[in-house]
């Protein structure tokens, strides 16, 4: 436990001059700190057991743990107070409280993910779950019939459409916000930031109002892709904007100083420098877009059949399939819902792992392969300059670095 890693020295300890010279410990757990932590935990637990089992008519698992925790905090404060001053007691107690808050949040995350995977265990081992659609499977059929192939394909198609729209538009807009400052771009940034929390159902409603009611199109995968794009666009722009702001100014200034026009600076310096961060931004946006149910609910319609044509006929995505499965009272349908949810979670986790691998480096840091490629390119450049300058060094005006052939 590192709960007590930072031990404060009470000022009066250091003051007397007759103490022998001793290096002060400024961190790390002390024995008494660890002991009082465990002692307090044990006594809190015992208090709760005593109260719930013997003394008071309390009941309930949640109440038990809350009581135990409160007793633990009180005992811990008293134990620390035996040898430290009030400041340090407050510090120790608050440290424990902060650990608790973080522990609660992260265990909730583990619980959500773990519960979904656990309930999905009934449906996932069946191979047909990944290869069939639900067309031939009724609600009462066992799990050996039917699957979510249609939803998986639908999710892929919808997210592909959404990416085809959001990646160029979003990245260009992020570059715009960074490269062309001014009142208008500030305004756009404000709007985009406010739109990052756009309720996803409103995005669906907007596409429903324009594409389906306004233009008279039918519900389709394309419409769902549009709805997901409207929802993803602000998220991607905002994340990419933050990343682009991190590109070191001296790199762009160096490019400008060499006389590069702005677009070359952006294309050859800014974007490559921020490449990993931009990829992360797009992937995180994708993870959000894949998981959204409500825009798809309004715009894609629902079907149990495999449909690979986004322009024609209803299409279903994974979250929508989950939603429809669990609305059914049949246990097999609910099992299918959890299976689909587990697949969706796995997809999001994989996207996150990719984002973590790509985005693990700050702007300007290269992998070994990228570094080798850059080194090769600069050797080529050096050779080229050598060739240009060696024979007629004094006659040629310096070649602009921004020539067409770099």
């Amino acid at each position, binding site marked *: 436990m590192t709960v007590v890693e*930072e031990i*404060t020295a009470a000022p009066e300890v250091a003051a007397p001059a007759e103490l022998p010279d001793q290096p002060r410990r400024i961190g790390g757990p002390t024995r008494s700190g660890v002991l009082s932590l465990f002692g307090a935990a044990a006594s809190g637990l015992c208090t709760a057991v005593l109260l719930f089992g013997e003394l008071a008519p309390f009941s309930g*698992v*949640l*109440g038990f743990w809350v009581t135990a925790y409160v007793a633990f905090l009180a005992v811990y404060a008293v134990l620390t107070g035996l040898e430290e001053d009030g*400041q340090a007691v*407050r*510090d120790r107690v608050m440290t424990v409280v*902060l*650990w*608790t*808050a*973080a522990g609660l*949040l*992260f265990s909730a*995350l583990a619980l*959500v*993910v773990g*519960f979904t995977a656990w*309930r999905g265990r009934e449906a996932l081992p069946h191979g047909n779950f990944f290869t069939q659609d639900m067309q031939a499977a009724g609600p009462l059929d066992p799990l050996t019939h039917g699957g979510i192939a249609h939803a998986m394909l639908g999710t892929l198609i919808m997210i592909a459409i959404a990416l085809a729209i959001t990646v160029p*538009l979003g990245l*260009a*807009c992020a570059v*715009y916000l960074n490269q*062309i*400052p001014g009142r*208008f771009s500030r*305004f756009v940034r404000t709007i985009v*930031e*406010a*739109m*990052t*929390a*756009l*309720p*996803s*159902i409103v995005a669906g*409603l*907007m596409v429903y*109002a*324009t594409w389906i009611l306004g233009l008279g199109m039918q519900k389709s995968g394309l419409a769902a892709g549009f709805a997901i794009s409207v929802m993803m666009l602000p998220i991607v722009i905002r994340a990419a904007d933050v990343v682009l702001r991190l590109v070191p100014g001296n790199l762009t200034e160096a490019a400008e100083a060499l006389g590069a*026009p702005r*677009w070359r600076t952006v294309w050859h310096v800014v974007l490559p420098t921020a490449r990993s961060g931009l990829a992360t931004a797009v992937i995180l946006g994708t993870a*959000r877009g894949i*998981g*959204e*149910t*409500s825009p798809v*609910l*309004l715009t894609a319609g629902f079907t149990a059949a495999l449909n690979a044509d986004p322009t024609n006929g209803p299409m279903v995505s994974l979250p929508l399939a*989950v*939603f429809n499965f*669990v609305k059914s009272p049949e246990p097999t349908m*609910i099992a299918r819902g*959890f299976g689909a*949810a587990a697949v*969706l*979670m796995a997809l999001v986790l994989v996207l*996150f792992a990719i984002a973590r691998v790509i985005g693990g480096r700050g702007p300007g840091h290269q992998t070994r392969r990228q570094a080798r490629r850059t080194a090769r390119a600069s050797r080529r450049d050096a050779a080229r300059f050598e060739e240009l300058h060696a024979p007629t060094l004094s006659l040629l005006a*310096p070649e602009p670095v921004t020539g067409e052939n770099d």
Partner: protein
Amino acid sequence: MLSVQADSGRPESDRPRPVPRRPQTARGFGDRVFRYQLTATGVVVLGIMAAVGLFLLLRAGQALRARGFAFLTTAEWQPDVHNFGIAAVLTGTLLVAAVAVTISVPLAVGTALFISDVAPRGLRRTLVTMVDLMAAVPSVVYGLWGLFFLQQHVIGLSRWLSDWFGWIPLFKVDGTQPGQPLASDSVYTASTFVAGLVVALMVAPIQCSVMREVFAQAPAGEREGAYALGATRWGMIRAVVLPYGTGGIIGGTMLGLGRAMGETIAVYLIISPVFVIQPHILQTGSNSVSSLIALHYGDASDFGMSALMAAGLALFLLTLAVNFTASSVVARSRSGAQSEG
């Protein structure tokens, strides 16, 4: 350079006067095209965002004209007999969001402080990724978890709250008496409280990441100064991090509030919809604007669709107002913190 040398040979008067260069001007044809294209994307994005509000307004016009002000004060939802309003669903939305924010903010502030100041250094990046991951977990997964796992475990807490605090109108549950343990569990299920709990888990990571970002910007010099004056870590947090992070806390809270109000699927899965103003958060039955839309879009007539659009417009305006306030608060706190370097 050759040209420079040629210049310096000229007499003083011929030299071009030093004009301060305008670094923003485009150089050459390529740059001008580049600028126009980028500006065009900015306009397109702005247009898309504006279209959201515009088309909702256009479609909602019919219903809004038919109802006028009563749209805000009616609780029923019967668009086909022209008797509908968002009083009930709006109250439900706000209550769910309020429950969610009340629960999520302490968790988010605690976790953000934990990541920025308490957690072992090697662990911090992993924790940040986990918070981001938590924000990306699909809402339908949270909904499933709330429906099939959390709900049955929360009944005890709901019962305890209503037994002891039932005298507060908010925690009252009709049909139960304190000390009457025989009341059915089902009066506590599908309530605002359960939905709020689930939504709290969904918005806490968003709030946490905003707050952590701002906390991390609290100037290192002042942190060290506090330590040098003998402050404990908590003393330092109270004296430096929290004052610097106030804007982040407020802004993050409001961003979470915006998300909580817009949440659809998790709320839809958990609550059982009622169309009366339901102020008892522990009691079964609640509603929200977004789950109203999800519930009724399928069977809506033309006019019913217009009514749903009007409800969507109200939700949109509400979240937009909250988000605008939030992002301006965060932006202001950020710029203030940066001046310190």
